[in-house]
């Protein structure tokens, strides 16, 4: 980790500050994390990046900030399958004197399961961490359909003390009003702010820094069995049009597609949310999967049909750990 600038965030009164960023797939969590890290330069910050897929795409993005990054992939850190890794990671970070640890939860994490895990962490670290609360990022363009499609979305909002209604630039005023109302109805106690590209005003950054933990809003805890995870590996280089054609096909049949792909002109990082397809040039992939995409989709989205139509071969992969 390299210190470059002083940050305007003050040190926590007791122990290492622990901040959690949650939100559904493709809502803008990693963008928020990058912007938060840009403001933390000069402070000792560690990041725990959690992804449902085996590919550490978000960790690769965050790694550029030179902070201490730990990846916990292939499942939610709040799920019993991966919580042991999460606990041991925080226990290992505890004595290292960080000012702040930021956890970017997976888009399919249920943060309502977080308190009991943090109790274990507290027990094993003699209270080394001071929880700063939970920030939830919501995709304004997709919240309404997602609330019907996936049981986790409501619970992620309920667990937060600060909710960013993000991607406001993609919706009209009436949709934004409806989305904000839905968020407030789920969690009347949370502070709700509207953002685009996860960009916060100085006032909102202060609000985020001052977020304190609180009881979650009372919603029923439910589990998501419907999300499908598929891994598409590419043995050959693709040309850009082939990649775009395939992404257009599966983008609308999935929540999120991301990964590293080897094109004829070189490596690229893919980030696809519905019709929003982003392709960034990369010098090399991160991790050992090589040229591959992780596809996460709802049970009713017909992702397997879309994959067949795209001509890509996917390996079935369960969302969380091993099956029964």
């Amino acid at each position, binding site marked *: 980790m390299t210190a470059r600038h002083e940050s305007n965030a003050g040190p926590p009164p007791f122990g290492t500050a622990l901040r959690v960023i949650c939100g559904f797939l493709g809502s803008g969590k990693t963008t928020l994390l990058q912007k938060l890290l840009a403001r933390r330069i000069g402070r000792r910050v560690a990041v725990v990046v959690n992804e449902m897929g085996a590919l550490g795409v978000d960790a690769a993005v965050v790694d550029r900030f030179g902070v201490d990054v730990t990846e916990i992939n292939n499942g939610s850190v709040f799920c019993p*399958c991966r919580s042991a890794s999460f606990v041991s990671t925080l226990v290992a970070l505890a004595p290292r004197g960080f000012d702040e640890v930021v956890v970017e939860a997976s888009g399919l994490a249920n943060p309502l399961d977080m308190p009991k895990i943090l109790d274990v962490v507290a027990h094993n670290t003699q209270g080394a961490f001071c929880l700063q609360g939970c920030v939830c990022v919501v995709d304004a363009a997709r919240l309404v359909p997602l609330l019907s499609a996936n049981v986790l979305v409501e619970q992620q909002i309920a667990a937060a003390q600060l909710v960013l209604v993000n991607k406001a630039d993609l919706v009209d005023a009436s949709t934004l009003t409806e989305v904000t109302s839905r968020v407030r109805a789920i969690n009347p106690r949370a502070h709700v702010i509207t953002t685009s590209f996860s960009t916060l005003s100085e006032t909102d950054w202060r609000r985020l820094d001052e977020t304190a933990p609180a009881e979650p809003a009372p919603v*029923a805890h439910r589990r*998501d*069995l419907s999300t499908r995870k598929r891994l598409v590996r590419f043995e050959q280089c693709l040309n850009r049009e082939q990649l775009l054609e395939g992404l257009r096909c599966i983008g609308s049949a999935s929540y999120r597609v991301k990964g590293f792909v080897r094109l004829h002109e070189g490596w690229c990082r893919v980030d696809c949310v519905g019709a929003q397809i982003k392709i960034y040039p990369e010098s090399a992939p991160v991790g050992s999967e090589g040229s591959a995409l992780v596809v996460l989709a709802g049970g009713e989205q017909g992702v397997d049909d879309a994959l067949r139509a795209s001509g890509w071969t996917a390996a079935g992969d369960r*969302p*969380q750990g091993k*099956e029964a």
Partner: protein
Amino acid sequence: MMMNGKERVKGALRGTATDRVPWVPFAGVHAGKLLGHTATAVLTDGDKLLASLLEVNRIYDPDGQPVLFDLQVEAEILGCNLVWSDAVPPAVASHPLSQSKDVPCVCNVPEPTDGRLPMILRTMAAMKQHVGERTALYGLICGPFTLASHLRGVDLFMDTVIDAAYVKRLISYTEAVTMRMADLYIDAGMDVIAVVDPVVSQISPAHFTTFLSESFTRLFTHIRNREALSSLFVCGDATKQLQVMCATAPDGLSVDENVDMVAAKAVTDAHQVTLGGNIPLTSLMLHGSQQDNIKYVVDLLDKVGAERLIVSPGCDMPYDTPASNVIAASQAVRDPEAARSIVAGYESTTRIPDVKLPNYAELTTPLVEVFTLDSASCAACTYMMAAANRLTGRFGDRIDVVEHKYTVKENIRRCQQMGITNLPALYVNGELAFSSLIPSEAALVDRIEKVL
């Protein structure tokens, strides 16, 4: 020696001597009716549920009673969307595994904080405190096959034929869920864990053995090891499955009016399992008279005997069941001699007028009639109706599909006139096509194409 209700139920399930046959009225949504609460209210509001259960305990004086009769609790936690009603338990409206054969991780088993469990566990603790000393409390969990059908949908029945390996993997997951639920309810003080698996009657004994025998055996062994008692609840015509179900060694087996109690008792006795049942829900409890109910109980005791028997309704009592009928059944169990004298020479006067049946020979469009207890509340009926509804999607207006619910008085007569004895059943142009077993889509399509 005079026993209290709890001792009586425990004695019956253990096969030891009891002072009389125990009485366990299954008052689920009907409990709410007693205090004017809807089914939805009583299944979601802990205060209303507790008050309703205490009212059941007060007026029906049961030896045992369930705390919550709703097979959708687990499904709701696991992401199924429910459709709620005022007079029946909720129905499952979406199936998270319907589009692909993924098997969930075992980490996705219910926790005490999930879904309605906080309310249910609180109510169980309160019931234990209020009546638990004298009343055996039943914790009802959704059985592994019915839960699998909730998660996968109607395709599960085809899966049993074409992809046995997948069904086994899925059942191993739902078994883990049932184990967890049993533990939660035992920890909350339930004396009897009732594993309610109505859809079991829709598969063959061979499939039961292939897919379910090991899971049920492990589950009942686990419950026994936790020093609780177990009972397997099925509904529909489970006659053919009696042997294989008893072989999994539950302490009790509870059946509905589709099963002949004398024949069932011979099987349960041979396996040292206690038989429970089977007062007809609709024709007697809902639409019959007090004498009808008394006579049924007295006849049942006379035919089956008092050993290893628990008298109960065939399943969850209809919401609108007159309390007077339940009280009558209760009195008949308590004092069979007095009851016998009340109904000596009694012949039922409950007579439902004939209904006009379709002229099947003159139909211009093939008619698919699904005879159910009620597809909104009976899981087996739900999946039979879902299979029929798929035909509508395939054939459109080239066929007509209707449901005849037995909860409607006229349909009791309709079943009598058509000679229908087992529900659910699917008829095509007035002829029996499928009874009890849920047909595969291919078999149904084949049957329809023959009459198009």
